[in-house]
């Protein structure tokens, strides 16, 4: 099961990230996970949030926002856990575009967000290997 990630186009100048987060704060949105990819001119803010619609409504006035399905894998916070997942993708020649991690509130839980080129295939393979992935309601419920 995939979850919805929002990405926002931010210019790489001082204060743009702060401004975007201020907008989200004012909208009462909680960010579960976040990563920023940047070039000299611009950055892409990627976030997993408590309320997708509210976030889009808050940001979309002047900001380019895009939804992307990504895979969030729950794993034990121990050595080699991520490697196991990546080995499966490697064997199936599934390309990982980018990856970032966040921790759960319960001790010992870790989550990794993966953007892959072949989403459906990746989901099937993970299911076959009994690896649990999150869906949007997991994220929403978790943050209630």
């Amino acid at each position: 099961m995939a979850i919805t990630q929002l990405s926002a186009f931010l210019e790489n100048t001082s204060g743009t990230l702060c401004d975007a987060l201020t907008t989200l704060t004012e909208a009462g949105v909680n960010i579960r996970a976040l990563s920023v990819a940047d070039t000299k001119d611009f950055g892409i803010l990627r976030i997993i949030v408590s309320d997708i619609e509210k976030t889009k409504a808050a940001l979309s006035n002047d900001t380019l926002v895009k939804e992307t399905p990504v895979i969030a894998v729950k794993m034990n916070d121990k050595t080699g856990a991520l490697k196991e997942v990546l080995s499966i993708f490697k064997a199936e020649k599934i390309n990982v575009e980018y990856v970032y991690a966040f921790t759960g509130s319960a001790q010992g839980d870790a989550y990794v967000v993966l953007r892959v080129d072949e989403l459906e295939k990746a989901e099937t393979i993970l299911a076959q290997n009994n690896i649990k992935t999150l869906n949007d309601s997991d994220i929403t419920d978790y943050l209630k």
Partner: protein
Amino acid sequence: MKRYYQPEVETASYEEIRQIQNEKIVKQVRYVYENVPYYRNLMEKKGVTPDDIKSVDDIKKLPFLSKDDLREAYPYGLLGTDLKNCVRIQSTSGTTGKRVVAFYTQKDIDMWEECCARAIVAAGGTEEDVVQVCYGYGLFTGGPGLNGGSHKVGCLTLPMSSGNTDRQIQFMMDLQSTILCCTPSYAAYIGESLAEQGYKPEDNKLKAGIFGAEPWTEEMRQEIEKSLGIKAYDIYGLTETSGPGVAFECEEQTGMHINEDHFYAEVIDPKTGEVLPDGEKGELVFTSLDKEGFPLLRYRTKDICILSRKKCSCGRTHVKMTKPLGRSDDMMIIRGVNVFPSQIEAVLLKEGYPPNYQIVVDRVNNSDTFDIYVECTPAMFSDIIADMQAKEKKLNLAMRSMLGIGPKIHLVAPKTIARSEGKAVRVIDKRKLH
């Protein structure tokens, strides 16, 4: 097949054309002097009277008219006859302030349409043809001009106007259009749309296209010719002089014949106003020779071009102009290369970018920097950096192939490029060259 719409004029000898022009200019100058106080004032300031104008060689004595004059005289200040004698108004888009409005008597309309008819016949048009006009109809001169020209030739005319590409394609296929008239970018778009719908170039009945109203390159011509399976002809004109059809391309495709029996063309040095000999690059200036509603003497088009009297294989004798090579008011020289913002805009549009951009030129360590800022669109935005960078790279290469030098491309957030009076400031030249 008829090769010329008005062969007696289109293939007249140089001397015959000169004689027509000389007779007309004497009358036109007197007409303007007597009917247009605004221009009479300009003539008086320069100490010129109608008696001083005995042939087209004397045109250089006349004062210039510029777009500023047209704005100042808006709306009726350059009108050449009573409004009751006029039957039509056409207008420019007016992106830099007040619109330009031009007035036409029925005779003016007939002359304009005959010029367009010459262009259609030069593109192979006969009464057997179905002409699909997808220039805009209305105040814009494109639709009405080609529509009228098509009627004059006796073609079956499809007055489609612009937009609704699916309907354009349906009519084109069902009613077997043979000549397409629109902007070159729209022709390219129709070509792409046809391919997307699974049509091959040979599936349509088109044989020719008459494309104008915006700058386009030789590369674009080849692309359009290939995608539609046609021969693509350029056409030139401006609302101030009448509309499209002031000049048009023939089968030789090496420049556009100016309809010299109606419009006298000069190329001048835009800085000094001095008339340049044929073959030299300068600003194109038009003098109407037989207009009634909106006669303009020595109107500076700001279009830079070259005139040529080289013999043309099509048999037409009228002087040819190159495609506008830019404007006299906005050319930049960057690292020794001439760059026109219009070229940059053409590349952006061709590459699917919005026309919201800013060009910044600076000089750092005695070397020019050249940056283009483009507003990112939802279609361009990706969550993957590499995709975005690939787009920047592709645009850089397209710019390099068009301009000869590669700018640095910067994608910026929507609505961030400064606008003044609703229009973006296109060029910021930080170099102090003058």
